[in-house]
């Protein structure tokens, strides 16, 4: 039950080495072990997206990845994305549109939205809705979130064109 394994990884640009219980999920490792409480758990089944973080550049569900499997990985959480400023425009758009109410879904939602910015810069509103369908939000009607992401996609396209 209590097997431990040593892992070394990079989290938000900092080197981290820990001995982890083999059954520990990435999200619990980040939250309990490292005190990075930005990403949340809500379903623990890979359904809701609240735990979404980046591993080696890809958006993943922190509740489905085992921490013990991450030796050598590069992990980025909402705190890291905030510090680097990569999604500052997206965060500002969320504030301006009130696309975050209780904010519990928001960190995961933003990591998913950052994925759209990166991989689908021409996404339509329907594409955005499709892409964030793995991220549940119980407070907003999603509309403000779609608006905010759409605003940023447009602004980025424009500044690209200019």
């Amino acid at each position, binding site marked *: *039950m*209590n097997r431990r394994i040593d892992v070394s990884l990079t989290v938000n640009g900092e080197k981290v080495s820990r001995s982890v*219980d083999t*059954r*520990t999920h990435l999200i619990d490792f980040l*939250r*309990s072990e490292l*005190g990075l*409480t*930005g*990403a*949340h758990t*809500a*379903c*623990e*089944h890979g*359904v*809701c997206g*609240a735990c979404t973080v980046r591993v080696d550049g890809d958006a993943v569900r922190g509740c489905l990845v085992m921490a013990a499997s991450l030796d050598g990985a590069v992990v980025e*959480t*909402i*705190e890291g994305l*905030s510090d680097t400023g990569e999604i500052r425009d997206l*965060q500002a758009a*969320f*504030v*301006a*549109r*009130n696309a*975050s*109410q*209780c*904010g*519990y*879904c*928001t*960190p995961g939602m*933003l990591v998913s939205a950052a994925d759209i910015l990166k991989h689908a810069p021409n996404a339509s509103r*329907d594409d*955005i*809705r*499709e892409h*964030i*369908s*793995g*991220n*549940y*939000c*119980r*407070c*907003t*009607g*999603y*509309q*403000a*979130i*779609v608006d905010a992401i759409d605003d940023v996609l447009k602004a980025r396209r424009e500044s690209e064109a200019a």
Partner: protein
Amino acid sequence: MNEIVTPRSLGLSREDLPNSYIGRAVPRPNARKLVEGRATYTDDVSLPRLVHAAFLRSPHAHARIVSIDTSAALDVPGVVRVFTGAELAKVCDPWVAVLAHLKGMKSAPQYPLPLERATWQGEAVVAVVADTRAAAEDGVAALAVLFDPLPAQVDMETALRPDAVIIHPELGDNLVFTRTAETGDVAAAFASAHKIVEATFHTGRHTGVTLEPRSIIADYNRADGTLTVHHSTQAPHMMQNVFATQLRMPEGDVRVICKDVGGSYGIKVHVYPDEMAVACMSRIMGRPVKFIADRFEAFGSDIHARDHRITGRLAVDAEGRFLAFDIDDLTGIGPYSVYPRTSAVEGNQVVNLCGGPYAFGAYRCTTTVVLQNKSPTCQYRAVGHPIATAVTEGLVDLAAEALGLDPVAIRRKNLIRDDAYPCTSPAGMRFEGLSHHASLDKLLDMVPLERIRADQAEQRRKGVYRGLGFASFIELTNPSPFMYGIGGAKISAQDGCTVRMDPDGSVVALSGVTEQGQGTEAILAQIVAHGVGVPVAKVKVVTGDTQTTPYGGGTWACRGAGIGGEAALQSAIALKEQILQVAGAMLQAQPSSLDIIMGEVVDRATGQSRMPLSELGRIVYYRGDTLPKDLARELVQTRHYITKEYPFAFTNGIQASWLEVDIETGIVKLLEHWCVEDCGRVINPMLVDEQVRGGIVQGIGGALYEHCIYNKDGQLLTTTLADYLVPMAAEMPDMHVGHVETPTQESLLGAKGAGEAGTAGAPAAIMNAINDALGPLSAKVFAQPFTPERILKALGTIA
């Protein structure tokens, strides 16, 4: 300032004044931490010597607890202690959830953990405390608890039969509460009717699914005998009272802190036995204990709601005028009424709200509230509203059909006139001022009716079935003590705000109402900035700490803006008056000749700046020696507010839903949705719009997807987010929100609530739209959620 303050003199409905913040879409000051992942939800708090709790939950709907063997659990590494119901009962008194004004109501005493019997599957039975949650769960797995399964009373329809299993034998039967409201001669109205329409409606048992699960840390400090509780709750002062009362402590020794709360919607305003158990365990151990429900636990132990079967009849005359409603409601609430609001209130609301938007003569409505072996139900967003609205609006559409009238025409004919107020409804509700016709007008401005009806006809020719549905509704907000207080519940209907000016001229506002994401802190900042006369960025709002904020009710039944907002406005005005007294002394001027605009004391007549507030603050706080000796210099004011004339501020609105039903698969596709609501004075339109949209989506959830499904033995089958469907982004339509403003005269601010509106009306609008779509096929659905299976059954496609 010897003037009488009025909404007009305050510039409450004008946006063009300097420092006018009412009615403006000001962004929320607390939003940045949310988008940066730097908020503090309860689970984010860690304390020295913290231990974690996990519970063994009953696998049976009804079972006697024969024995509990804890020895193997105590041997699990990391496990610190195991607690049973009997141990916790030594430090905690049981509670009984009844309200005196709900005559004849009864329920059984409830303990943190049950003593003899488990009465629903998912009820916490034994607690294990360990140094990590994982170890606590290992401990739970090692517990040996012997249950003797008993027959379960699952079906509410049979709960009152002579052969029913009596869940609490000491109560005699499973009847919790029944009430009939009757006005006018119902029998005569039905006898004289031109047409009578009738249907039986079901609203599906569903739950709130707050994305942040229920969370609590209780921290009993043996040094000073205080209990500090970090709690994901909507009502910190209410919980302070509950912890103090049940654990036999003075109220001042209990402090409840709720920083960020990850969604609540009424789910987090109740007393949960497992959370009380956490407080008891901390009290016994003298160290902090944390419990965070996981999703599985949430489905089985968060309150459920809306498990109703309602039969309704509407009598109409030949012109299509409503004569009488006759309604019979039955609801199953699980094995206990939930403390302290009680589980009878939802059924009681159905009685209060049915027929609400309409003028008619005779009314009869009965609710029957019964026990069953399922999770307890209690108040969830828009308590009773979506049920009453679905029944009322479903019957209205049936009447329109029976008379060959258009759904808009029949509503126009029967909605209470906008000039008929104040008035009292047949259900006994007092309305101060509603705007059904103005709201309908506004809705018709927004909904492209002609285009939709043309498209509908054309699509039908192609075999595509689209429908448009309407639903008018009333919404109860700004609750007075008539909601709970008169029934003996210690739930504050008043709320307070303390406003203080600091030396740099900034303002701190401490409020008893709480922030759950709806933007309470933003609107309080706007109101205070407006009231004192400072830039909104200069106002810091503090909520969610019973030790520092004025005593109040917190967030429920839409009271944040209407009650908390008015307290904030009154305290801000008082502070401004006080500042001007001091400024008058400093500037050798009549206080009434001065004003405060954007943080500057100015000459009222000329607008010329006389002194910044920072200078006034510097002198008051650091150089008081230079001021007149007897000058009152308290730059802090507190005001409390409670409504006086009306038990509730009713609001109203109307929704429309446009959708397509795939008759091959039974799947409903939402195309567009509209909502017009009247929440009185709109303080921040952006926040109101998003509240309404979020509410609509929760209403859509209840109408189409969400369902707590049990098998006949009382086993809950929907226990993960993979089994229990909630609305996702891709299925949600564009939602258009419009406003009519009828400020309440009860307060200066004039605000009523807006949080329930979306949820109240959406299911009925969707039901009517589905039935409109299926009209040519003569199929109708009345049982929520309107799943593909139910739609195909209505179509006769499947048996």
